[in-house]
């Protein structure tokens, strides 16, 4: 292993954005290396900057600081040895399937005579013969992505970057395409020396990759590296597979921390403001009810994802919300309902709302907003005023989403009200009278 040449080397790579005079760190101090012959998955929750990292490695984006080396040379501009298969396929809708592949060859300077035969050969290999003259809009999602793969392989990249290539496909097409990708890769039929897969799907990463680089958000950073050292073909029912999936869930779900750490601080106070996961209350209630019905009120997180047919990303966000609200705790990859969670699951709607409201008032960002509203004239504030204040803590887009989530939760708890036409946030009369916390 160690004798193999290093293709990509990143050291202390950071990406910082400025907005409104404040800086936000999207990626912090990432070290990463990729060797010849490796299939590496970059795994993490949405917003952890894994797609940004992929853009940095391909040279689409220049990092704010740090080194990006390709075969020992600093990378300048777009990396000519790398290519990307996009989540959205990125096919030109006005070109036929054949032309979409040919255009990549044309850009590479392949003479006109060779282009067509090479493109046909590639389409053949991904099983698209007969569809050369079709337009992308005539194809199913899975077939479109096959064109994406054929186009990427047309330029014979050393490094093939896959940006969540299966997440826009239906379950069956995605599974079929994963198999075909593995066949190409393990069969050694393509000149590709390494593959980098960006994904938020834990099973996909374990199924395909030799090594999983796990990232976390706030700020985006690499937290650990997991080797998957058992050979292909891997089966989803294999105990070794399940064991690894469990381990990765354990790492990503973390441990529930003591409450003051779990909740973070309010905006404006020193310390990091905890961002709320963007989930709907109904989904959360569903999860809590499901756990309540299980023996011992606990479950293995990876098993939960399978039972609920849920993407790992969404499930982890729901779990995060349950932890923040004190409905569940997480340890060693297992989730356990708390007593409060149990009460919530079995309560009537009005009682649920009461429990929810009591817990919500302890969340710093909510406490902060309620405090602002109580101090404001007629207990009301304009949306944009609150958002501007939040933009001191979060980038503009995230600030807007945070406020949306807070208002959503606050409405359910009947603490907050919001009038969309005047864009004004109110305190519900009951909440206004309550003593400041």
């Amino acid at each position, binding site marked *: 292993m160690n004798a193999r040449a290093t293709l990509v080397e990143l050291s202390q790579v950071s990406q910082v954005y400025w907005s409104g005079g404040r800086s936000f760190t999207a990626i912090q101090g990432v070290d990463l290396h990729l060797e010849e012959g490796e299939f590496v998955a970059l795994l993490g929750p949405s917003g952890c900057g894994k797609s940004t990292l992929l853009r940095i490695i391909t040279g689409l984006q220049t990092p704010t600081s740090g080194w990006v080396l390709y075969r020992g040379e600093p990378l300048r501009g777009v990396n000519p040895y790398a*290519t990307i298969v996009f989540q959205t396929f*990125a096919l030109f809708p006005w070109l036929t399937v054949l032309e979409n592949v040919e255009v990549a060859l044309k*850009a590479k300077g392949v003479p006109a005579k060779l282009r067509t035969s090479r493109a*046909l050969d590639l389409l*053949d290999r991904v099983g698209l013969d007969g569809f050369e003259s079709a337009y992308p809009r005539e194809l199913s999602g899975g077939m479109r992505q096959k064109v994406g793969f054929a186009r990427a392989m047309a330029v014979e990249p050393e490094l093939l970057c896959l940006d969540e290539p299966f997440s826009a496909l239906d379950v069956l097409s995605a599974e079929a395409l994963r198999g075909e990708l593995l066949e190409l890769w393990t069969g050694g039929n393509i000149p590709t020396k390494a593959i980098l897969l960006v994904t938020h799907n834990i099973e996909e990463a374990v199924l395909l990759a030799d090594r999983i680089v796990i990232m976390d958000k706030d700020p985006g950073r690499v937290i650990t590296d997991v080797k998957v050292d058992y050979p292909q073909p891997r089966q989803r029912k294999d105990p070794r597979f399940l064991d690894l999936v469990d381990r990765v869930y354990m790492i990503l779900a973390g441990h529930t921390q003591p409450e003051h750490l779990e909740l973070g601080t309010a905006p404006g106070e020193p310390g990091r403001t905890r961002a709320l996961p963007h989930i709907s209350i109904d989904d959360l209630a569903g999860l809590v009810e499901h756990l309540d019905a299980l023996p011992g009120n606990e479950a293995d997180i990876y098993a939960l994802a399978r039972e609920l047919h849920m993407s790992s990303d969404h499930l982890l966000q729901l779990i995060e919300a349950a932890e923040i609200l004190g409905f569940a705790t997480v340890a060693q990859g297992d989730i356990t309902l708390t007593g409060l969670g149990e009460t919530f699951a079995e309560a009537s709607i009005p009682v649920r709302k009461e429990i929810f409201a009591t817990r919500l008032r302890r969340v710093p960002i909510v406490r902060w907003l309620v405090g602002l509203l109580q101090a404001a004239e007629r207990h009301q504030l304009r949306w944009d005023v609150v958002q501007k204040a939040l933009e001191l803590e979060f980038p503009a887009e995230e600030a807007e989403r945070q406020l949306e989530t807070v208002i959503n939760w606050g409405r359910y708890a009947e603490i907050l009200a919001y009038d969309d036409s005047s864009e004004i946030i109110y305190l519900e009369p009951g909440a206004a009278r309550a003593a400041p916390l």
Partner: protein
Amino acid sequence: MTDRDFNHPIRLFRFVQPLLRPLSGADFVVLALMGVGLWAGVRLGQAVPEILQANEISLAPGVLPYYAVLSCGRMLAAYLLSLGFSLVYGTLAAKHRLAEKILLPLLDVLQSVPILSFLPVALLSFSAFLPLPVAVELAAIFLIFTSQAWNLTFAWYQSLRTLPRDLEEASTVFRFPAWLRFKSLELPFAAISLIWNSMMSWAGGWFFLMAAEMFSAGQRDFRLPGLGSYLQEAANQGSIPSLVWGLATMVGIIVLLDQLVWRPLLAWSEKFKLQLVESEYPLTSWFYDVLRGSFLVRALWQKTLLPVFAWLDQRLLTWFGPPGVRPAPETGRSWWRYLAAVVGVLLLGVGLWEVGRFLGRIPPGQWLALLEGLGATLVRVVAALVLAMAWTVPLGVLIGTNPRLAAVLQPLVQVVASIPATALFPVVLLFFLELPGGLNVAAIFLMLLGTQWYLLFNIIAGASAIPRDLHYTSILLRQSRWDRWRTLILPAIFPYVITGGITAGGGAWNASIVGEYVHFGGQSLTTTGIGAIIAQATAEGDYPLLLAATLVMILAVVSLNRLLWRRLYRLAEERYRLE
């Protein structure tokens, strides 16, 4: 994924057309069209008057085809100029941050400059270094250009700024050379918007054709043989038969262009739609189907044009840049930039000083007259907009919500709408000059004629975008007619009314120059208005007044856009957009 290499030669061969095939019906249409074209060419050659005096506009109907060709030639030259200008200007504005800061506001101002004010400026500067006949011809083309270029430029700029991110990244990752990027990404993405805007540009060109082909500046009278000058001469002489002949020719050409150029282009451009779903009602064009179905056309295309294009494509690919490695963004500004900035500021200062001196020659009384004229024209513009809305809103909603009616009325409305108002104006004048309001009211009518269509088409589009389920809900709720309008239809079409209103408003100001000061039946008629002042100043060669009036109108239009329309537009975008 098995190896099936042996298949390839066969499959490659399939792309070649079978050479012998019976001629289809479409081929006969193509042949017939070619025959008619040849005949028309010969007839045209015979019809050209033996001696053409530039200053004499003949009213004989026989010269009309010749005049029409001349006018179309001018329009085409101006259009090609506009297209070239748009591609360069729009690209600069979209790709260079610094350039964008200057070019965009400049474009905003340019398009609010009353078009006819460009004319003396263009003519004077062209005649400074060119023989007069050439200068006059160029000035006319330039004037038409100013009525065609701005919306195209905006369309191109907008397209470049809204390129889908994934396609742009794909082009970069696959290292498209500049030409390939332009050909495979930028141009196809902009195609639909460019075609629609080209149609608008041609309509704008027809509108100002009369003014461009026949005008007087100071003591001098300039005439270019063409359809526009024919119509204007007919109006001057008060000859109704000639007016009818001229109008009929113009309408004929417009319909022909629509059927043979624009509809086929639109049908062809369906493939540039971005959404990855087949559209339910694709645009169709009989002529496009004929061209596609014709074996002759395809053979011609494959044997002659295609190889030429392929060769050209290859050349351009190598000329315009090797696979682009983007240079690192410049951080420090080099000294020459400072120098350019200093020189620019100096030149601007000198220019402003000159402008100030020039404007200083205007007596205070005329400034007052200018303001009075501005007020009068503003009232007319508002009146024209209100009148236009009064009839376009009900009709537009009726057509837009009723597909069967739309199928019948839409083509008809399109043809009627494409007749330039200026060509109809003399006929309208005949009627209005008998009425008490005279030119005062006729000018409003001209504005109305020129601008109502923008509103109508936008409202039709808005009304047809209302989802069917909302209609059904409204019916199920047993809403009264008024309630349905108040809660569903008016909010839904509001953004479209605003979009149409912005264009219509701009057009109305421009129309004031043509409408408030006219030559008719051998005499000049005028009414109070800033358009009249501009037209009169042009005719009398009073350049300080022309400059002042133009600046006042630009200021008025730009501030109306900024203060009123833009706010309404934002309101419409945020509150009433149906997704």
